[in-house]
């Protein structure tokens, strides 16, 4: 093998060649030298070629296609009904109006103003409580042995698989007899009990990864089990707790069946419950339905967009573990 510096090798004038005992070597520049390549070639290199460009086109096309129904919903929410009937994708006459939102906000059979407030009042405490109580159940479940552990595991799985309809009848009667029917508290409690299944399983799986040394170190330092929980377990689980809270928030906020069964009076209705009422009897007022829908979904969507890392991680961990 020989050093292959031939005399006819193109050596650039701008990057001073240095000799290394007969061999030419070039001090590498920080970034790719622009003068080495003509502009068209650089442009060509920057734009993905052939098959890959096609993949980009298809990928972006598909992703947009997936959004079309939601875009339509949004367009309908800001246009008057006569224009929606012509097709929301029709832009010959475009009037942007917030009339639909105003109407939804004060909708007679369930004003969104009230419904959104109700949804928040139910969702926030239900999520916070299930997250905290779920961690408290999950920690010993992941760490210690105790009687009936297998049975508890089984029950959690059953509840994770069960349809919400299965508990509707029992809870209906329970809430009736305790006077919690058609109250915030009643619905909150149902959500906590129902969410416990997956929250505990999820956090148990997460806490199985908690290094025992952390707790042992804290015990040697003299911490009680409760202090360990507060100062070791909770901070360690913080990312998982955020995932749980975000996912549980979307589920509780979006849930339709439980409010439908347990919230009956007009002033107690939750936002998802009100939406089907907006359809009306004859001609559907799409603008109203769309505005109500956008108001309802904007909360979970904003949450997803801001915390999507946790949401996605949690989703994957919840089912893949």
């Amino acid at each position, binding site marked *: *093998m020989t*050093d*292959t510096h031939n005399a006819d090798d193109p050596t650039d004038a701008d990057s001073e060649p240095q000799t*290394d*005992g007969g061999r030419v070597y070039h001090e*590498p520049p920080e*970034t790719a030298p622009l003068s080495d390549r003509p502009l068209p070639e*650089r442009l060509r*290199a920057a734009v993905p070629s052939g098959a890959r460009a096609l993949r980009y086109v298809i990928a972006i096309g598909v992703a947009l296609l997936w959004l079309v129904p939601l875009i339509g919903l949004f367009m309908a929410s800001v246009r008057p009904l006569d224009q929606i009937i012509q097709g929301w994708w029709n832009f010959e006459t475009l009037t942007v109006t917030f009339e639909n939102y105003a109407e939804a906000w004060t909708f007679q059979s369930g004003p969104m103003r009230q419904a959104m407030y109700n949804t928040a009042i139910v969702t926030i405490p239900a999520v916070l409580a299930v997250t905290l109580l779920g961690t408290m159940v999950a920690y010993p479940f992941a760490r210690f042995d105790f009687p009936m552990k297998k049975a508890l595991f089984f029950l959690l799985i059953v509840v994770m698989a069960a349809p919400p309809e299965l508990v509707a009848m029992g809870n209906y009667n329970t809430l009736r007899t305790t006077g919690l029917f058609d109250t915030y508290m009643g619905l909150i409690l149902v959500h906590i009990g129902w969410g416990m299944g997956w929250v505990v399983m999820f956090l148990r799986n997460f806490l199985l990864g908690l290094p025992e040394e952390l707790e042992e170190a804290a015990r040697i330092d003299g911490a009680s089990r409760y202090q360990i929980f507060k100062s070791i377990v909770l901070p360690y689980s913080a990312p998982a707790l955020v995932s749980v809270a975000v996912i549980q928030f979307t589920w509780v906020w979006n849930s339709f069946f439980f409010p439908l069964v347990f919230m009956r009076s007009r002033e107690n209705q939750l936002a998802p419950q009100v939406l089907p009422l907006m359809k009306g009897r004859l001609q559907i007022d799409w603008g109203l339905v769309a505005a109500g829908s956008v108001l309802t979904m904007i909360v979970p969507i904003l949450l997803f967009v801001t915390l999507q890392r946790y949401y996605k991680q949690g989703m994957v961990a919840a089912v893949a573990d």
Partner: protein
Amino acid sequence: MTRISMRSVSKYFDGGDTVANYKLDMEVDDGEFVVFLGPSGCGKTTALRMIAGLEDPSEGEIYFDDDRVDGTPPADRNVAMVFQNYALYPHMTVRENIEYPLKVRGVPPEERDERVAQVAELLHIEDQMESDPGEISGGQRQRTSLARAIVREPSVFLLDEPLSNLDAKLRLEMRSELKRIQNELGITTVYVTHNQEEAMSMGDKIVVLNDGTIRQVADPEELYARPRTTWVAKFIGSPPMNLFEGENRDGIVRLSEDNTLPLPTETSSTTVSVGVRPEDIAVSTEPSDTDWTVPGTVKTVEPLGEYVLVNVEVGGSVVNVKVPKTDAAAGDHVHLTFDPTDAYLYDEDGELVA
């Protein structure tokens, strides 16, 4: 068999923001075992991946014999590659892993069985053939991945840090094993490592890379005997060469106020470094009568059995000395002496004056 040539090959990433390789020019002869040696991030793996066809050069050309191969997919180059983490297919048994390249290329089953059995014997893994990769030891995994590379008789054999995940004993064993196999098969081989001992012991030629560019190409003896730049000098050897920096005034190198060394070779450069390998320096508590001496203070003495490593402070920097034995202890004032024939002189650009 195949000769590999790289002609002014550069590779840029991130739209030019990162320069992985810059104007590589080199040639690997038929059947030669060439080692790419350099610190991590020096671009040696990227260079290997360009030869494999896993990356395309941004500029320049790569030839296998007289065929230009850059732009052709790896499957068409008849190269085999061993990855750092072995890249064994976890859902296939050892046999299926080894068989896979043959299967993909449509080799008939009888021939496949025969060739798989051959390489299994060559690499001594006959007993693990039906195991999953997860069930066998690191060394056996390494052998499996070598077998998979060898089985289809590639014309170029590429290895990316193949021994770095093995423990020290296995690494020694696999080193000689690899060398044996390469000798036996005579396949043109490019081997990437950051471990100079591996490079020195296995390579017919060593290509030293840093910052994405080639610093020196030499066989192991020459690389040790004549490092062309201070960078290579400081990279090769364990511990590497000591460099005394100073000012060249009328044939005298002034290291500091009252320390001087004679100039080993004529040069017009004013800032120079005198390099001496740790094994070429003697430590003495008595002043020496030659000019080739430097005073210093012993910082630590590390008896390593085979030799004693003495770290001596000279003018604010530490000089490593390897001696068979010594009476010097920490804190002693000592004199370091060496033979002028063991001294190297580097000019102000850090290049060997020869």
